[in-house]
């Protein structure tokens, strides 16, 4: 037991403690100055804003995918079920170059989109696309088991009480999936905020426009502006902490309300 805690602290806590110690070396004014600089604010806005938008898209599309995979039988269902995990398993750099090539002006999808006047690669839209790509398994894999285990009788009960199919879905099924949907949303969001590899290739990385926060950290590091890098990292880390904490609380709450059989 003592061993567990001590190596955990070595592996995880000491590095993180180092990060926070660094921040403490900054005066509040310095810290604030770094964070409130236009470039930092814009990078955080790009990362958080687009990550949230992408997570919302994933919530909707993920729900549709889960529904199709769990409730319907169609040719290739098992294959598509397995494919959902590709963004998990594919190294982010590979995803990055692949998405860029796909959505570049001469790419398979980029060319037709360009003909419509839509430019994806090297714009914030590209970042959004990459974030959707990496977030999709989080929603699907959190919601799928819950929908699978949903007691078929509750739908029959709702029907026999006179509820239409739509009412059953809105009033009974969706609320039952609620905690899982929120967890999936939070996980997809957390992943997209911190994502680096699959985004930087397609992003264009134009400061204040399409520069994500993790890239700004890397740039500050290469300029040896460690204080700047650290301050941005701390803010992102705190947000991650809050998200994990919220997700764990959410799961606990869901478990208490819904006993496991």
């Amino acid at each position: 037991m003592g061993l567990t805690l001590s190596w955990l602290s070595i592996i995880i806590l000491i590095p993180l403690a180092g990060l926070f110690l660094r921040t403490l070396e900054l005066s509040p004014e310095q810290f604030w100055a770094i964070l409130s600089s236009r470039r930092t604010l814009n990078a955080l806005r790009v990362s958080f804003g687009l990550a949230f938008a992408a997570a919302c898209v994933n919530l909707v599309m993920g729900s549709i995918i889960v529904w199709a995979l769990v409730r319907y039988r169609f040719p290739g269902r098992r294959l598509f079920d397995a494919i959902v995990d590709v963004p998990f398993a594919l190294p982010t750099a590979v995803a990055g170059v692949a998405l860029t090539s796909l959505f570049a002006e001469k790419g398979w999808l980029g060319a037709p989109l360009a003909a419509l006047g839509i430019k994806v690669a090297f714009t914030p839209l590209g970042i959004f696309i990459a974030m959707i790509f990496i977030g999709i398994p989080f929603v699907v894999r959190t919601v799928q088991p819950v929908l699978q285990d949903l007691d078929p009788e509750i739908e029959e009960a709702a029907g026999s009480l006179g509820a239409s199919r739509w009412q059953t879905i809105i009033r009974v099924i969706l609320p039952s999936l609620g905690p899982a949907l929120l967890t999936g949303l939070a996980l997809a969001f957390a992943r997209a905020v911190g994502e680096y590899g699959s985004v930087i290739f397609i992003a264009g990385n134009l400061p204040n426009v399409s520069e994500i926060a993790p890239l700004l950290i890397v740039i500050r590091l290469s300029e040896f502006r460690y204080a700047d890098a650290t301050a941005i990292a701390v803010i992102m880390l705190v947000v991650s902490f809050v998200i994990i904490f919220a997700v764990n609380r959410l799961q606990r709450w869901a478990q208490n309300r819904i006993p496991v059989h």
Partner: protein
Amino acid sequence: MTMQIADSVSLSTPDAKARRHAVAAGENLRTEPRAVRIAIISVAVLFLTVFVVLPLVVVFAQAFSRGIMAYVAALSEPEALAAIRLTLLVAAISVGLNLVFGLVAAWAIAKFEFKGKTFLISLIDLPFSVSPVISGLVFVLLFGAQGYFGGWLRDHDIQILFAVPGIALATTFVTFPFVARALIPLMQEQGTQEEEAAISLGASGLQTFFRVTLPNIKWGVLYGVLLCNARAMGEFGAVSVVSGHIRGETNTMPLLVEILYNEYQFVAAFAIASLLAMLALITLIAKTILERHLDEGHDSRDH
């Protein structure tokens, strides 16, 4: 299914027959009208195809765009071979470390009750939700020239950053949760009864672990190792920050993909990328097979 049932209903008048047919066909309380079903399936399949299948196909299409010779040539470059070697080495180190750590952590969490358990679980999950760039950054802050241990390391002539130890450390940190995460639910579900039985039959602690606990969780261990390995080989952000990008020395495969891509050597970049994509695909296939094993274990306990 519904259609069949409706068709075989025996009825008195054709009028009533038509009516019953309509009711029964639309009346499965647990599904939607056919048009809705088709629409949902189409949206799901189209979305996965555009966002997941196409990027995967592009990798291979680009890698072989100049023919198989160019592909092979790109992979036989000394730089490429060095990157492959380094990637394998780093993956071996971090998988090995995390296997030990993960087993102990899962054991402690699943089989004992103690204060701060929730905190510990959150801590294990942390590397999943921390940006990989930040994971790299913390090691720069610790071991870099201006880092807390930087001076001491320089005095003793130990190189961590921009060298293999730094890459291995960052990779270990990033892949930390995989083994523990795979094992905690499995071990929790199995409870402590079998271990208690073994100990009551006179087995020592280690005997119990190797003869009872480990065989019960072997598929879970393999599962964790598999995912851990995939992520270790593919890690980009964290490694990018600590590696220093020294060609032929501290470039892993993902880093080489970036460099080659930025140098417009697309065939070479995608050739390396195709190896990593292959790794991902093999991992997924193995994962599917393992999940089946894990499910079977689950079922046999249920009955």
